[in-house]
């Protein structure tokens, strides 16, 4: 099932990098994606990106018991992003906090445009994202893995949403911020796209950027998304064949 890769093979492609882990400015951390890692869930996926370890389960489309959430013409897509107490340096108190509530909301909004929700009125699709270990960029890792889990569950979709962040660290616009770069960096711009059309389904920006830097970061993040998108497809092909 899940095998855990380690994160010690960075920076082989560049010797002149200014980044703490020696990566080039447009280089992703090493990653792997695996589909169908859980027994009970309708669909699941496991993703590692650098030191991030994220597991996602999808249930549904299934009956929605909470009447007030029910939509007469489509399914609702509910996300729960949760960090394990042991996933960070200082133990995180279990249960939702404000950060995870916000991430849950924008994650479901990021996935929704890709899913044919109108095919399942009055029902729900539940996406559970568990961050087992966090090393910067967990919301993007969660979205990328969630798409694979939705596909694994057989949920009909227009596209596989993929997410990646770019940002500014030590004055330079770089791709896929690590934990240190995120903490000490000047800005963080997580982006999710539907790669077939290039449409953006999640966009945040935290920190100070000039409009030019922002444009550069957006382009860089989209490039990163395209690379991860290939790995998503491979994960599904690996599980189900061509």
């Amino acid at each position, binding site marked *: 099932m899940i095998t855990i890769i380690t994160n010690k093979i960075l920076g082989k492609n560049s010797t002149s990098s200014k980044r703490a882990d020696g990566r080039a400015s447009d280089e992703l951390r090493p990653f792997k994606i695996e589909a169908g890692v859980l027994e009970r869930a309708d669909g699941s996926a496991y993703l590692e990106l650098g030191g991030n370890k994220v597991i996602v389960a999808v249930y549904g489309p299934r009956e929605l018991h909470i009447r*007030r959430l029910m939509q007469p013409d489509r399914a609702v897509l509910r996300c729960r992003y949760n960090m394990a107490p042991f996933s960070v340096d200082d133990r995180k108190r279990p249960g939702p906090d*404000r950060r995870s509530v916000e991430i*849950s909301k924008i994650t479901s909004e990021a996935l929704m445009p890709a899913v044919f929700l109108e095919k399942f009125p009055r029902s729900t699709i539940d996406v559970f994202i568990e961050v087992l270990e966090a090393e910067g960029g967990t919301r993007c890792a969660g979205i990328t893995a969630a798409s694979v889990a939705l596909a694994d569950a057989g949920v009909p979709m227009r596209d596989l949403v993929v997410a990646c962040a770019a940002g500014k660290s030590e004055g330079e616009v770089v791709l896929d911020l690590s934990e240190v770069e995120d903490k000490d960096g000047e800005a963080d711009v997580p982006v999710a796209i539907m790669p077939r059309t290039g*449409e*953006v389904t999640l966009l945040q*920006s935290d920190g100070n950027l*000039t409009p030019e830097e922002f444009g550069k970061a*957006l382009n860089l993040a989209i490039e990163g998304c395209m690379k991860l998108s290939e790995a998503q497809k491979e994960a599904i092909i690996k599980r189900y064949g061509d």
Partner: protein
Amino acid sequence: MGVTIIPEIIRESLNNLVKNGERSDDRSFDDYRDIYLETGVISKAEGSARVKIGKTQIMVGAKPQIGEPFSDTPNVGVLMTNSELIPMASPDFEPGPPDERSVELARVTDRCMREAGVVDLEKLCIIEGKKVWMIFLDLHIIDYDGNLMDAAVLGSMAALMDAKIPEAKVEDDEVVIDPEKKVSLPIKEKALMCTFAKIGGELIVDPSLEEEQVMDARISIGMRADGSICAMQKGGMQPLNKDEILKAVERTGEITKKLMEHLPQNNQ
């Protein structure tokens, strides 16, 4: 959070209006509704503001408290933002713990103010590692008619500029507060937020409730007075393309400049 069902006919008519370059309240795409801003409205609060954008109305209070700094930033004060979508403001709001909409509102507002460096938090340190001023911004949404984000940031900015906190001195390692002597908060930057809704393929500024209910997507951009971007958040169930995002950033420059005029003149 309740779900309001929007009749197709309204969705269609609002979409068609925008496609013809119009809006239901005759505004142009870059126009805000009438903005009303008043500060010092709550005398018990050290800083306060009442902001109205159209019929949307928010009360913002800023209250200081002395507390311990975070261990990773021992010489920096704390700015915290909370928001409450109280049931009075809309039939869709329900009592209970903050739902995801109000959490998002508070966190986006918080990021915008914090990342812009609105308050010089280092000046709020009293005894390094032990005592700092913590400024609590509470957003009380009392009337919801769309575009809470921009109103929240405008109100927060005004409340912080309005705030006068007592002077704190250190005597024998003890903090002594002089309630008679009030000082303004160290305001370093100004930042405001501009929200666009995508309707009928166009981006329109300051969506009303009606427009928010039919919009495909939303993008909120926080900008400092110097034109740099300090926060951004996309919302809504449909995607935006790259050109739309970059155009929105471009338009935000002009729009926030105008919006800044609503802020009280420098109180220093």
